[in-house]
């Protein structure tokens, strides 16, 4: 075994990889070799650290120096100063990780302080492409315990007692689902992992698979043992190349170690696992559509019942759980259901991972105990709204969810509270909006997404969402009438009640919740023909105020020559020519151009 005095951890999540963390890794390894340090220093690429805003992230152990925004050109300095001479490069430290001349540990950073990482425990710590590192942190111990010490019903009872609920959106009791599958009369059974994460702005499941793929594999094997299955599928979208690759590596390594395949732990239990790639249709996240897609058919949903636990894949009883749900299982088995119940709330035990995005300082991936309030997530963990703007609303649940307003900011995050106020937990997207976001435009954005993704099988969803989009576009273009708002509302309610699957049933939520909390914004578009936030282009015009010094920057920048004026004289915008691109506003040094 090689001995290393230092480990350099480089984030290999999708966010950091897209800002070149792969090249940083390559250069780091080369530089370390050049300095003859390759026998002393080990470079490890891990999953997502969560603090994507500060990426690419590099952490050097044993000191735990947390470097953020690392560029390729910084690699030399880290190697020469820190790794060779032991001098920490203060300039590159994440600003909160360093105070009064002392390094703070990662857990003391505000972003991590209020988090409770169970599912993301290994992300940013282990190398997901090395099964031994997973085993070092008790990996596959839960599977071993289950196979050698527990009967299938014991496993199901333990999961039932834990109160774990499906993290994919619905919040159905996981143990109950396992029990239904266990009781189903079927000669063959299947275990399926739903990794078809499709909400715009959501990347929880992606990050789990990228950072800790073995946790999902182990959990699926446990589930298979509990319900009596010997085959499993992970249905994952092909647009997640890093996750797919790491999952395949993990499956291969588990096979090689005999943790997948025949006669695992010499107990006679067999489990075979395969990946099925999805083509990225949002509807395939719906379980019956997902099953059709695995079967090679067009990904369209079917009526329930029969539920997949009765007649699922190839008409055989099937258990479908989402990635994050599975990732909780090994921890519950090892630490017990009582331990799990102590985290979170009575009805929603455990934690939930959220992808924090939109108008928030610390964009990234957070895991919080259920019951944490929206305020804590947005201000304490997320760092608040950038540029001193006012918080307006938070959107949860993606295209199926709704908005919660500023006066609901003390709402605890759990399944019940969110749906009480017209939103939903969903899979965990959380988009923060500030005073500049037009709520009508937000609703339009989500409906536009649903129109694209509607599979077309049932009329309410196929036709209804299209008509909703038409009305919303009419309103944002300033051509709406008051009755349009009423029509929109009644149409939304009809789609909600009449659609076949979850996609259609929840698609109107963004419209209904914005109508509920921001009706006056809709009315402003229709009655006053203005967009209060200045988002809807068709409803606003650009003006040059008396602040104009006649510097001519705007007229040079205008792509359509719509600005006229002489040097040192106030300029004028020709509103017939203006395409409202906003280029002049970004160029003006005097803030003399306004839109209203």
């Amino acid at each position, binding site marked *: 075994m090689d001995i290393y005095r230092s480990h350099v951890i480089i984030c290999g999540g999708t966010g950091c990889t897209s800002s070149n963390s792969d090249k940083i890794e390559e250069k780091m390894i080369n530089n370390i070799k050049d300095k003859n340090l390759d026998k002393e220093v080990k470079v490890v690429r891990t999953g997502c650290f969560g603090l994507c805003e500060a990426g690419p992230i590099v952490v050097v*152990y044993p000191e735990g120096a947390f470097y953020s925004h690392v560029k390729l050109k910084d690699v030399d300095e880290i190697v020469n100063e820190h790794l060779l001479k032991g001098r920490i490069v203060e300039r590159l430290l994440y600003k909160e990780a360093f105070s009064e001349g002392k390094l703070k540990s990662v857990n003391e950073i505000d972003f991590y302080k209020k988090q409770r990482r169970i599912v993301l425990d290994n992300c940013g710590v282990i190398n997901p492409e090395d099964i031994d590192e997973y*085993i*070092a942190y008790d990996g596959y111990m839960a599977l*071993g315990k289950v196979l050698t010490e527990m009967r299938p019903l014991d496993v199901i009872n333990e999961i039932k007692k834990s109160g774990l609920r499906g993290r994919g959106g619905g919040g159905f009791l996981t143990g109950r689902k396992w029990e239904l599958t266990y009781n189903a009369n079927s000669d063959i059974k299947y275990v399926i992992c739903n990794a078809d994460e499709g909400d715009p702005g959501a990347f929880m499941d992606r990050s789990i698979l990228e950072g800790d793929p073995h946790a999902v594999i182990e959990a699926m094997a446990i589930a298979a043992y509990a319900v009596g299955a010997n085959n499993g599928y992970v249905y994952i979208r092909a647009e997640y190349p890093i996750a797919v690759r790491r999952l395949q590596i993990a499956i291969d390594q588990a096979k090689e*170690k005999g943790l997948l395949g025949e006669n695992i732990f010499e107990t006679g239990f067999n489990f075979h696992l395969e990946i099925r790639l999805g083509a990225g249709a949002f509807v395939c996240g719906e379980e019956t559509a997902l099953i059709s897609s695995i079967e090679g058919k067009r990904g369209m949903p079917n009526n329930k019942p029969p539920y997949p636990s009765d007649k699922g894949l190839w008409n055989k009883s099937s258990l479908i759980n989402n990635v994050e749900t599975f990732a909780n299982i090994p921890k519950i088995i090892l630490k017990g259901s009582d331990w799990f119940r102590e985290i979170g709330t009575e009805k929603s035990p455990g934690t939930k991972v959220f992808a924090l995005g939109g108008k928030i300082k610390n964009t990234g991936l957070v895991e919080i105990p259920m019951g944490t309030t929206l305020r804590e997530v947005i201000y304490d963990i997320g760092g608040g709204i950038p540029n001193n703007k006012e918080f307006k609303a938070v959107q949860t649940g993606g295209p199926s969810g709704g908005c919660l307003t500023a006066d609901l900011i003390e709402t605890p995050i759990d399944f019940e509270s969110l749906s009480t106020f017209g939103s939903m937990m969903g899979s965990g997207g959380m988009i923060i909006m500030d005073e500049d976001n037009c709520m009508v435009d937000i609703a339009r954005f989500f409906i536009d997404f649903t129109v694209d993704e509607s599979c077309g099988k049932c009329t309410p969803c196929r036709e209804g969402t299209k008509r909703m989009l038409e009305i919303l576009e009419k309103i944002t273009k300033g051509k709406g009438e008051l009755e349009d708002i009423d029509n929109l509302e009644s149409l939304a309610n009809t789609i909600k009640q009449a659609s076949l699957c979850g996609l259609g049933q929840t698609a109107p939520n963004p419209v209904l919740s914005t109508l509920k909390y921001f009706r006056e914004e809709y009315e402003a578009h229709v009655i006053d023909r203005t967009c209060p936030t200045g988002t809807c282009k068709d409803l606003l015009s650009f003006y040059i105020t008396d602040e104009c010094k006649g510097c001519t920057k705007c007229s040079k920048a205008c792509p359509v020559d719509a600005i006229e004026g002489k040097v040192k004289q106030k300029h004028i915008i020709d509103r017939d020519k203006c395409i409202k691109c906003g280029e002049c506003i970004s160029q003006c040094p005097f803030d003399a151009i306004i839109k209203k």
Partner: protein
Amino acid sequence: MKSLEELKKIRQEAKKRVVLRENREGIRIVVGMATCGISAGARPVLMTLLEETKKRNLEDVTVNQTGCIGICRLEPIVEVYKPGEEKVTYVDMNEEKARNVIAEHIVNGNVIYDYTIGAYED
């Protein structure tokens, strides 16, 4: 995988490779590795310390490097921080001395006064 025992064995071996990444309260051994330290031969000392701690399975011991400690003429310098005890500074180190420090000071708990900066100044 044949048994839980086999898995535990793999875990034990694998644990050694990742233990560095955890926050630990334990003994810290620091080697001065600025230009002065390196040119005086600090690297073989560092490697010896690493080898010895691994060989003896001293899991609560962290070996690390630091910058110039300030008395360049006495390099290579090794400092030992034991929780609750005063820092001990060893000077003019070499590989053999490093091995002795691990055996006597770290394992048996006896400071080797002959190697310390106090003894040298005498």
